[in-house]
């Protein structure tokens, strides 16, 4: 792997379930992220897709060290974050920033744009209070906002503009890696395209690495170099974005791709769609063997046995024991 900036090795994030009030005891575990190994190269956009509840947001929070890891390591530029103390993590936080899904909830409604963007700069001592105005103006221009709106509050902006403010806040400390958790899901199509363009321009201009989480495969295909597909806390397919989405190999990726409605009536009405039965199973009691087997159209006895490992197949990594048999 040439020049990885962020490496995850067998990362696991489990949440205990407690029951009882007087006698509290642990009755189960939610295995939100269960053994994820992947790496992100410098300047690369890695897409992370999956249905709700598959653990993609928990993985994002685990990388950010916002939730404690149960096992495995997160390494940022050779520094092991999972073993670091709170102070050590604080020292590298500026290299690792996050953009959240809902720009209505992730900005403080009582802080002006100036206050929001100047705070990280001042806390990390990147500039003096006197220089802050100039720095903030520069940041605003970077994300396509006019600096004259500096003293306005979040409610005075539209959803797309608010997401621009959130991106500017993440960029304030010139990070090396940005984790964007569904940054365009709450926006309209025409605004979505503006934010996607902005993100890909910025990654190129600043040589940023971006982990882009989404459930919309067409968006992911457009912005990402590589894509990882998650199902129930594990990666089931990982490879070049175009390859994985145009020629999916794992039965789950195939179903996911086929579920996207195509905006063309002739294609849409004539194609065969794989409609998966049921809902994703619960990560509290994941099915034995391959977690996808109860919904998989190709499942056989062998799939109930062991958890399939990621193996190299057709130029990408896939976790399915029946590859090439269907």
């Amino acid at each position: 792997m040439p020049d990885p900036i962020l490496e995850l090795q067998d990362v696991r994030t489990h949440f205990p379930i407690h029951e009882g009030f007087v006698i509290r005891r642990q009755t189960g575990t939610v295995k939100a992220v269960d053994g994820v190994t992947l790496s992100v190269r410098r300047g690369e956009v890695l897409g992370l897709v999956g249905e709700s509840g598959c653990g993609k947001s928990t993985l994002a929070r685990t990388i950010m060290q916002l939730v404690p890891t149960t096992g495995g390591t997160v390494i940022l530029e050779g520094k092991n974050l999972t073993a670091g103390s709170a102070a050590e993590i604080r020292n590298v936080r500026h290299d690792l920033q996050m953009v959240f899904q809902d720009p209505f909830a992730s900005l403080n409604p009582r802080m002006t744009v100036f206050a929001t963007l100047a705070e990280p700069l001042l806390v990390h001592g990147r500039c003096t209070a006197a220089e802050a105005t100039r720095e903030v103006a520069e940041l605003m221009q970077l994300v396509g906002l006019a600096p004259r709106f500096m003293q306005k509050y979040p409610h005075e902006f539209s959803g797309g503009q608010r997401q621009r403010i959130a991106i500017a806040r993440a960029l304030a400390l010139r990070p090396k890696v940005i984790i964007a958790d569904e940054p365009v899901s709450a926006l309209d199509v025409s605004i979505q395209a503006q934010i996607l363009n902005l993100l890909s321009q910025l990654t190129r201009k600043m040589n940023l690495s971006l982990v882009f989480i989404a459930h919309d495969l067409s968006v992911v295909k457009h912005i990402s170099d590589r894509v990882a597909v998650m199902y129930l806390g594990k990666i089931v397919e990982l490879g070049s974005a175009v390859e994985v989405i145009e020629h999916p190999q794992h039965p789950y990726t195939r179903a996911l791709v086929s579920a996207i409605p195509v905006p063309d009536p002739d294609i849409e009405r004539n194609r065969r769609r794989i409609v998966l039965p049921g809902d994703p199973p619960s990560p509290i009691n994941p099915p034995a063997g391959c977690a996808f087997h109860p919904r998989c159209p190709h499942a056989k006895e062998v799939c109930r046995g062991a958890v399939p490992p990621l193996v190299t197949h057709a130029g990408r990594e896939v976790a399915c024991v029946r590859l090439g048999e269907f």
Partner: protein
Amino acid sequence: MPLLSVKDLRTYFHTRNGIYRAVDGVSFDLDRGETLGIVGESGSGKSVTCYSLMGLIPQPPGRIESGTALFDGVDLLRATPAQTRAIRGKRIAMIFQDPMTSLNPYLRISEQLIEPLLIHEKLSKTEAMRRGLAMLEAVGINDAAKRIRYYPHEFSGGMRQRVMIAMALITKPEILIADEPTTALDVTVQAQILELIKKMQQELGMAVIFITHDLGVVSGLCDRVQVMYAGRIVETSGTRELFREPRHPYTRALQHSIPSLQAKGSELFTIPGMPPDLSKPLAGCAFAARCPQAADRCRQETPQLAPWKPGHQQACLRVQAGEI
């Protein structure tokens, strides 16, 4: 004669910051058994149009300023409370975007599901329960006899949307209004729900008004599509024609901004700017400020929806004049 005929509907909201023209002169017909898609971005008035028909606009601040909506001889906009009660939930039913908030968390599914039957068809409770069970099975809920006793929180999002659909269809309505019913769901579950709506429509022969912002969903489901922008219809035609030959610059721009239709690596096409503030008076075409082909005339004259071809209407002055 169309099943539902809406003429010049105007719904304004009188707020402290001015009069917000959410729906500003919308006219359309809906035929028996037809599926009509209403497409537009947030704030384009697609939901308010349907809420107005259902009498669900909070008044004040909302007010229906003008228009008629004839359904079987009754003007839905001026119906008496008794007339509304006889139609709403019985002959015209609605499902909503968020199945988490549109079910009552304190009531078992059974009670919510059979309520329309007890009210509209005056069935006995046993008879209603029998119909309710059959309906739950029809929408694909396994083990319905047990699950009908569940509370909403015991279901997943997709299952709750199935329950919502069962509730809406239990009285065999003539029109189903679906307000972004799959927006809050995962793609795999969305595919299940769209299949279900198609299946139920074939079985019951009802007309469907499907509100969405996703052109992909429209392409597989709807017979006819109308595109809304800033409270008005800018283009309406058969689905196939709309995708093959969109005439209005906004429809074209909307189609171009879908990421899956664009080459990877290139800059995504975007519509510059934002939709207009509907509380400010608007001269000319509402899209003129963002339109790459706008002429001076577009900022002065207000365009009207006019036939372009049989069954295809659009509201662009320059297209109507044959200039573009």
